[in-house]
């Protein structure tokens, strides 16, 4: 087990390194690195000074090392538009996005998995067919359109929930979280629902496919032959067996949820990291773009690592040195 963990950590670090190299190449070799560091309307003197300061006239590999050095220290440059360090800016917006992503992931899991298991257990019932039809809609319909419809229905027509913005926050561990207030939850409801729909549909389909396959397996047959109740079989055998592929997809999907938050945050004016990237693209705030990319790459690698480790926890064949 320890060997597995170490192996994964090394892999993760290598990927991070590769990612940083990619971003570096993308910005410094292909793009004009100067544009990342100073605003396009700076004077010639400032440009020359910046070039010397950042060593942009040095050979590329030296620049890469300097880049890495800055990265490790957390120096991702300063935003053109807001003139605050990028790291600070991104970190200040991160809690909002995390809140949103987590809420939608929870909805996807706690509603999607049971529905999917039911659909896999009784695949020919009309309820199951309805669930599956709804799931097709769930992942076909683009997130932004769902957001639109949600706003239209709940905010405009029914006036039950607010149409945008984040609710009031409560400080926990020095960070503001809005889900801890009732009003905050109201503001969180629609965006979280919007973001969760794709995931919900995916969880339903995956759980159903997994459940169907397991229900037809010899394991279930043998359990039935031993006289186990259907409920016990579902709870102890099926759930345990489908949890492995589910967790893997879950983890990967968490990353994609963070990505799709971009759309949801734009529609609902949710002050998260996603909205930040869109704003920075439209306003050509390159340091923020670079910072966002690096951060996302880091998050991805971390998420993948966590998923791999959870996988090992769930599948005993990996733990005791057995062969899968």
């Amino acid at each position, binding site marked *: 087990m320890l060997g597995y963990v170490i192996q994964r950590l090394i892999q993760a670090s290598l990927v991070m390194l590769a990612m940083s190299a990619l971003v570096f190449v993308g910005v410094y070799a292909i793009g004009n690195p100067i544009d990342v560091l100073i605003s396009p309307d700076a004077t010639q003197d400032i440009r020359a000074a910046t070039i010397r300061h950042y060593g942009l006239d040095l050979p590329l590999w030296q620049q890469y090392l300097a880049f890495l050095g800055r990265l490790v220290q957390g120096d991702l440059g300063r935003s053109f538009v807001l003139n605050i360090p990028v790291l600070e800016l991104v970190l200040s917006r991160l809690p909002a996005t995390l809140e949103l992503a987590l809420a939608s992931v929870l909805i996807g899991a706690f509603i999607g998995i049971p529905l999917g298991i039911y659909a896999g257990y009784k695949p020919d019932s009309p309820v199951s067919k309805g669930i599956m039809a709804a799931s097709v809609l769930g992942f076909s319909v683009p997130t932004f359109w769902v957001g639109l419809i949600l706003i239209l229905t709940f905010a405009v027509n029914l006036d039950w929930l607010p149409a945008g913005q984040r609710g009031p926050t409560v400080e926990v561990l020095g960070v503001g979280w809005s889900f801890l207030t009732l009003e905050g939850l109201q503001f969180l409801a629609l965006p979280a629902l919007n973001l969760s729909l794709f995931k919900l549909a995916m969880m339903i389909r995956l759980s159903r496919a997994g459940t169907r396959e397991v229900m037809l397996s010899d394991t279930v047959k043998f359990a039935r032959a031993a006289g186990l109740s259907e409920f016990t079989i579902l709870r102890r055998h099926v759930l345990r067996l489908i949890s492995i592929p589910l967790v893997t997809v879950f983890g990967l999907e968490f990353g994609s949820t963070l*990505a*799709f938050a971009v759309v949801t945050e734009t529609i609902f004016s949710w002050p998260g990291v996603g909205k930040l990237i869109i704003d920075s693209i*439209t306003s050509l705030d390159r340091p923020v773009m670079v910072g966002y990319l690096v951060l996302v790459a880091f998050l991805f690698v971390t998420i993948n690592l966590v998923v791999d480790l959870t996988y090992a926890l769930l599948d005993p064949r990996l733990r005791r040195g057995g062969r899968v």
Partner: protein
Amino acid sequence: MAAFWREYRESWIAVVALAVVLLVVAAALLAPWITPQDPYDLANLNLRDARRAPGFVGSGGYVHWLGTDAQGRDLFSAILYGLRISLQMGIAAGAVAMTLGATLGILAANAGGRIEQAIMRVVDLQLSFPAILLALVLVAVLGQGKVPLIIALVTAQYAYFARTAYGAATAERQKDYVEAARATPLPGHRVVVRHLLPNCLPPLIVVGTVQVANAISLEATLSFLGLGLPPTEPSLGMLIANGFQYMMSGRTWISVYPGIALIVLIVAINVVGDQLRDQFNPRLRR
């Protein structure tokens, strides 16, 4: 082939979906002839017709069945032209991505060893990266327009095709008849073309349909965010975005109708893809 169609017909939903797709394709192809207005020709637009409800008779003398948008475009025409763009983008991106991805996948499966590992490592890495982020970044770097958009879409999607083709080719290569074929003096690429390729096609087609739907959805999303095609050639996403601000004041048709058109197309393609997948999947066959 006939048996395939017969089995397909068993699901009436799939048949309806297929009909819808064909209808949309036909409408998109015939758009210049069946629409009362060319929404790209700015000279056609009259601001006095802007934001009018469905059923309104405009200055052109014809009925705007679906109303007009903020620039005075007839929504019906704009939607049909928008569908055209969606289909163009989706199919172009899908086709290129499929060719690129399948070639890479089969190449990897065939080459083996280090090349196989290297290619698949990159593909896997890319698969774990969400398409939308990739597309966002590429559009930001490459700028707007049809070609950059297609490049972005292809880059975001080729990995799915690569993995599918790789999986199918690897499974096929392990079969005995391929071993036998390789023992003959037939040149290597003959084996690939005549044996590996036909067996990779069914899963590729399934992935292809889903990916076309995804490409359409992705393009619409990008356009909605203002990062897609230029505003002079409004795709469905842009139409929806433009109409967003009018939703609160009750002029919902500007966003909703293009939205419905988009949804119908995407869902129909996905349903067809679902049916194809079920039919091609040997494990579900009793």
